[in-house]
């Protein structure tokens, strides 16, 4: 049994805020052993980031460790003074952060930052020391995969791509071979294929250097992929902890169970996703007794009044009365109010419309965004470049059908969505809505059409005007189109009810709503004028898993009740598995594969799709050995200068000479409805099984 290097006991952390003193972490205890990767997972506000900061003793000035101890190789980090901590940091303790761009000092070269980081631990001036440090830095950069390290080390952070910056950050952290690395959501902001690369890098480094890692994330799939043990947090407490295989195989705490159930992994072709009723409690307003009780299906009287103890149960530890001694005598389950929403009466007129009528059609549409060049510069001959965001796309969507657009950054999926709605003007090609060519209609004439095609925007908070109340926001569409409303208050309540919100939300401002609620208001606004088409831009981005599940259920219900055509834009294939009929995979402005969802997942026909499917972290640790990992090399090229021939060929494992010169068209395979843009679709291996 490897030695324990970190032993946290009864940790309590409080923050001093405008609203008083809040307890962010309470009674928390866990251990980390040498060389093991311990994951900390939880939804927003659970305190996982606080734990990461606390271990490094880098809490913000208004945070304070008020109780407990953290023994790092025998030394209590809580009691250690600033100088002692400084000696440990960088040498035995290291940390990497979420956003590499803001974690690297923008005005110093990589070399400077790496050398200074070592100087703190390897003090000594003189050429010999300098050279030793430089050599070590170069070796580390090469190990993490930075090509041409001796030249690159003199560059500045902004000159590297996102993935490279992440690698550099990891290199700096591991320079002195620390015993413990604290990783605060290091891959959450990365594209899926890039995330897969970084995760593999981290695993490899752990195997080589024996570093223990405390890995903070909200993504259960990532935990399943790389962690040995895991800790589940809720409202500042650890609710369950144990080996990853045990917890995923047999979750004990109701919250863990609910969390796993609401994950929309594609292998579950269910009718509805399971959600967790209610919301995560705010730290200001924690319930008495067990913090999860108000949302728990198994809760009994006891759970609402007394806090449970953190007890071992089998190989795990659980914070739940159900595994404690007093459970039998605790009485019956307390029934919780149900939260279902009244389904809309299906409008007869809508249902009657033919379901195979094509409502959206594009033909070779291209949207190129030119850089803005100042007038004076234009006179002097300067011309800007263009980003070929959408580069020749053909799609057809029928009424009642849902098309998923999936791709990573730079794929053009968001631009395509906006082009379909004429929020951006296409540079070439045509867009046809309901049989009408809208490509060149002037914006003013488009207005009546706009009522029929709406968008649900990605960021709920900034898409709601900050100075308007929800009721005003919901009535905007009517005012803009001059549609008279007899009873505004009733209309607003009606719209809110459609998306499952109570009428008391009507008088609130955007910043007073939660992320999920703001999303729902956005959906309600889009539905106000009875559209036929909805384009949803990343409908679940930034939402906790259980909240996202609720939104997806809502979207599915609405589609059926209103017979809407959907275009769902996302980078998360899991979401599409649940809600999309067909999926289009985009890469550098082109569609590389288009097929029915089931078919795409079981047998993809494009190497990029294959890699995407392989890279998605699924919450099933047993897949670690079974699933063959396909890790793409390199990063997505810039959309300003796409590679010649097939845009994917530089990263494709099946590429041949032909791929470099000949761009493959998107064509049907075997005359069916499965389209792929590849010269060798038969080389792609089977995807994930549907079981």
């Amino acid at each position, binding site marked *: 049994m490897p030695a324990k290097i970190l032993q946290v006991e009864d940790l309590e952390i409080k923050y001093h805020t405008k609203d008083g003193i809040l307890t962010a972490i309470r009674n928390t205890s866990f251990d980390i052993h040498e060389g093991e990767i311990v994951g900390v997972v939880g939804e927003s506000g659970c305190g996982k980031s606080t734990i990461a900061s606390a271990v490094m003793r880098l809490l913000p000035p208004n945070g304070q460790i008020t109780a407990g101890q953290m023994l790092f190789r025998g030394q209590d980090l809580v009691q250690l003074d600033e100088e002692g901590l400084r000696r440990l*940091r960088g040498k035995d*303790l290291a940390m990497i952060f979420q956003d590499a761009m803001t974690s690297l000092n923008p005005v110093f070269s990589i070399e400077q930052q790496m050398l200074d980081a070592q100087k703190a631990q390897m003090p000594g001036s003189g050429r010999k020391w300098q050279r030793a440090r430089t050599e070590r830095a170069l070796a580390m950069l090469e190990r993490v995969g930075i090509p041409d390290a001796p030249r690159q080390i003199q560059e*500045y952070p902004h000159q590297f791509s996102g993935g490279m910056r992440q690698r550099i950050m990891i290199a700096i*952290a591991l320079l002195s071979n620390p015993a413990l690395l604290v990783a605060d959501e290091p891959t959450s902001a990365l594209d899926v294929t890039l995330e897969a690369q970084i995760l593999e890098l981290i695993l490899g480094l752990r195997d080589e250097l024996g570093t223990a890692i405390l890995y903070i994330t909200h993504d259960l799939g990532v935990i399943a992929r790389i962690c040995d043990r895991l800790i589940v947090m809720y409202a500042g407490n650890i609710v369950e902890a144990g080996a990853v295989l045990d917890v995923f195989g047999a979750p004990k705490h109701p919250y863990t169970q609910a969390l796993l159930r609401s994950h929309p992994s594609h292998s579950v072709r269910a009718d509805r996703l399971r959600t967790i009723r209610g919301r995560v409690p705010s730290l200001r307003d924690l319930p008495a007794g067990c913090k999860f009780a108000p949302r728990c299906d198994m809760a009994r009287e006891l759970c609402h009044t007394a806090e449970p103890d953190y007890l071992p149960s089998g190989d795990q530890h659980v914070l739940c009365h159900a595994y404690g001694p007093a459970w039998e005598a605790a009485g019956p389950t307390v029934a919780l109010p149900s939260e279902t929403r009244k389904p809309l009466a299906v409008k007869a007129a809508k249902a009657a419309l033919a379901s195979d009528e094509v409502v959206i059609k594009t033909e070779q549409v291209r949207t190129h965004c030119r850089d803005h060049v100042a007038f004076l*510069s234009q006179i002097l001959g300067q011309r800007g470049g263009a980003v070929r965001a959408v580069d020749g796309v053909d799609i057809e969507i029928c009424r009642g059908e849902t098309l998923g657009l999936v791709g990573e950054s730079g794929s053009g999926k968001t631009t395509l969505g906006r082009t379909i709605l004429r929020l951006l003007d296409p540079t070439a090609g045509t867009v046809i809505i309901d049989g009408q060519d809208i490509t060149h209609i002037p914006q003013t004439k488009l207005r009546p059409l706009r009522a029929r095609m709406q968008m649900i925007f990605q960021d709920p908070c900034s898409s709601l005007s900050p100075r308007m109340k929800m009721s005003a926001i919901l009535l905007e569409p009517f005012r803009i189109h001059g549609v008279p409303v007899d009873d505004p208050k009733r209309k607003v309540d009606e719209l809110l009810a459609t998306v499952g919100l109570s009428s008391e939300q009507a008088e609130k401002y955007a910043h007073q709503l939660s992320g999920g609620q703001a999303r729902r208001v956005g959906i309600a606004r889009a539905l106000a004028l009875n559209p036929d088409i909805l384009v949803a831009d990343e409908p679940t981005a930034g939402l906790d898993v259980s909240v996202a599940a609720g939104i997806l259920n809502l979207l599915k219900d609405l589609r059926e009740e209103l017979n809407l055509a959907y275009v769902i834009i996302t980078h998360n294939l899991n979401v599409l598995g649940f809600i999309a009929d067909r999926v289009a995979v985009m890469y550098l402005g082109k569609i590389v594969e288009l097929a029915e969802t089931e078919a795409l997942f079981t047998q993809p026909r494009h190497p990029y799709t294959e890699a995407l499917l392989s890279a998605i972290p699924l919450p099933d640790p047993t897949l670690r050995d079974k699933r063959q990992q396909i890790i793409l090399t390199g990063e997505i090229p810039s959309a300003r200068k796409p590679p010649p021939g097939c845009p994917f060929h530089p990263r494709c494992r099946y590429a041949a000479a032909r791929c470099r010169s000949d761009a493959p068209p998107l064509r049907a395979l075997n005359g069916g409805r499965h389209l792929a843009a590849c010269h060798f679709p038969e080389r792609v291996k089977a995807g994930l099984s549907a079981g």
Partner: protein
Amino acid sequence: MTVLVLLLVTIYLTLLIHVVPGDAAKTLLGPRANADLIAKTRAAMNLDKPVIAQVGLALWDVLHGSLGTDVFSGRPLNEIVGAALPHTLILAWTSLGLAVLLGVPLGVYSATHPDSWLDRITAVISISFITIPSYVGGLFLLLLFAVQLKVMPAIGLGVRGDVPDYLRHLILPAVALAITWVGYLARLVRASLLEVLNQTYIRAHMAAGLSQRLISYKYALKNALIPTVAVLGIGVGNLMAGAVFVELIFSRPGMGTLIYNGIQSRNFPVVRAGVLVVAFLFVTANLLADLLYTYLDPRIQLDKTRG
């Protein structure tokens, strides 16, 4: 861009003369001038030519580096301005130097020891200094040191060729100009440094075990200096405005007195020449600040269209 701006300025100034009611030459010469002299002066000032030609001539002169001729003395304005300019420049740069030497360290100390008693005192002093305009400061200094206490000279440049005396005469005016800037710089440096210290990369430096001193004085400061430098570039312009007042108060010859006297005697060519040179210096200072900015911040590329 710079060139364009300067040309525009020249055009403005030439056109301005025509906004004035009355005959510019007559105003210049006063009520006792005779018609002949007026006519000659008008010719010398090019006022007898059509407006377009005047503008054209003015631009032509500027592009050739000539500021025209003073109608009173007949001397080329280049000479007159050339005599006055160095004193103003010395004054401006000395003040700037003083302000930077005092203000920046104060700001850095405040930011690294927030809410300490020194921080609070510095805050009070900075804010008070900011509110003291250069002319009030100059008057007070003059009053206190020169008139009441009689420890400092009140007037002029000092004995010609005597450097220590020149410096003695420089102290009060330079301090007067610098006061406002010390306060402003201290506040500015404090604010930008505090903002920088909140950034994630500072946390990353701390996580890497770098010492607080190294982080504050090297890594954070360089980032914080960037907005400071930008402000300094603009500041030079304000310094020159302040110089007008200070030169007047301490009776120092310089661009300020030149322009002021020109205005009092309605001597437009002098005013125009003076203002043009000041504008040029201002724009140059901004350009220098931009260059410094580029040097400090590797993310910015120098815009190729800058003239």
